[in-house]
């Protein structure tokens, strides 16, 4: 039960489509507590990634993820560009040379990616950022794996925890990013970055749900 290079590419492409569909929704969330561009930013980046698929379709998974990261860094801008860019760059380093990923490989990739986001953005749990969705997702993934569940089940558990983390951002007062300028007024709104992060892991869970054992 492994994730092959083409599965990774399928996941990235699926996520690009999810972002395109949810562009207005992400932008609306960002209008409420930010500057109203998160959907546009992510869509610009992932459309560029999609256009680059032919260039990296025959590379190893590490190279694929690194190219995704580089592309995001140079097309997204804003806070999410360097953050998601770093996520993919670090995940790419953790999977360098691999043509397929075991559950443990995926745990290592996600760990590296999330570490990269935290290293760059210095957000703590509870600051109302994408970290609030990603850290619980990573945690749930590890727990599911150590309890002996397989890849599809673990991905599902990870996406579910990610969703909980995302929803848990609603009551929080933001302490990082633009939303923090609103102070108390940021409470009562769901963080846009946490939302796009949940979409990312949800896309992985769905995209890889029927992988052969």
């Amino acid at each position, binding site marked *: 039960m492994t994730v092959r290079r083409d599965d990774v590419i399928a996941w990235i492409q699926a996520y690009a489509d999810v972002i395109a569909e949810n562009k207005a929704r992400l932008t609306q969330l960002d209008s409420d507590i930010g500057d109203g561009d998160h959907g546009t930013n992510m869509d610009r980046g992932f459309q560029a990634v999609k256009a680059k698929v032919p260039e990296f379709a025959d590379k190893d998974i590490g190279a694929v993820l690194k190219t995704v990261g580089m592309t995001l860094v140079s097309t997204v801008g804003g806070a999410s*560009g360097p953050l998601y860019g770093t996520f993919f760059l670090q995940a790419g380093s953790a999977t360098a040379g691999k043509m397929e990923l075991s559950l443990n490989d995926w745990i290592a990739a996600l760990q590296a990616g999330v570490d990269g986001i935290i290293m760059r953005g210095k957000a703590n749990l509870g600051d109302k950022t994408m970290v609030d969705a990603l850290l619980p997702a990573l945690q749930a993934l590890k727990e599911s794996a150590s309890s002996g569940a397989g890849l599809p089940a673990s991905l599902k558990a990870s996406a579910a925890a990610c969703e909980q983390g995302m929803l848990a951002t609603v009551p929080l*007062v933001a302490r990082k990013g*633009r939303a923090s300028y609103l102070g108390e007024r940021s409470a009562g709104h769901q963080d846009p970055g946490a939302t796009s992060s949940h979409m990312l892991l949800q896309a992985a869970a769905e995209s890889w749900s029927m992988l052969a054992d």
Partner: protein
Amino acid sequence: MKKLINKPEDVVKEALQAMASAHADLIKVHYDPNFIVRADAPVKGKVGILSGGGSGHEPMHGGFVGMGMLDAACPGAVFTSPTPDQMLEATKAINGGAGVLHIVKNYTGDILNFEMAADLAKGEGIEVEAVVTNDDVAVQDSLYTAGRRGVGVTVLAEKITGAAAEQKRPLKAVADICRKVNAQGRTMGMALTSCTVPAAGKPTFDLPEDEMEIGIGIHGEPGRTRMKLKTVAEITEMLVKPILEDLPFKSGDSVLAFVNGMGGTPLLELYVVYNELAKILGGRQIKIARNLVGSYITSLDMAGCSITLVKMDDELISLWDAPVKTPGLRWGI
């Protein structure tokens, strides 16, 4: 959405093309990655000054490229920080051998992208310093936020720092002047209306006909408090008081006073604000040594204004007075 545009996604590119043709004597525009450089870049032996940020704040930053101010500016998408590849190419294009100063407004996106760019530029052997502007007193509790936003002071710091660089001072000294202007400057802004991001197509926030937002930034973020509309005398007092208390500015100080329009506010009203500001400062024996009144750091079509004060000394005044020749700010040449 009422705007003079074609497609939202083409606004920035089309405006760059217009600037290139309208100001061919002052600047050049590079595309993919996008940046604006002064026509004679790189200037040998001079510290290059690069700034940048999301578009939608025109004339800042592209309009401040030219002799005596910026060597280059990187425009991002509307309200979105530009990317490290733009900054790297711009840094290389303006490096005249004396290093490059990055003037960065304190927003998470700008900080992260400029950090990555500086790392890349250093990797290519270019000496880079960064100064972060963070003058917005509307952001309180900066421990619990991303810190104060960089707003009005940025324009003044770019002018004054540009003049210091023009004197061929070394990188460290040029960066120190920039830090000094930022340290001695404070800003507070307000909005009468929201702005409308072209790609979003509708106002970022709703503001009833009789209300205003106090403590807004320059990206259509709602401010910290919303209240009933007041007279300009009351509004100016509300903006100036936290500025004066924060530094603090004291009786006998000389200041550079900057009344800035947010993009949808006519000059007539900015002068009315300046009139109130002059009265308040006069009453506190604070001398307006220099002033700037106009729309220089805007937030698309938002109606509203910001007030910036920078404490000045003779050196800063002479750097402010030094010639500047850019599309957006020009004197002495």
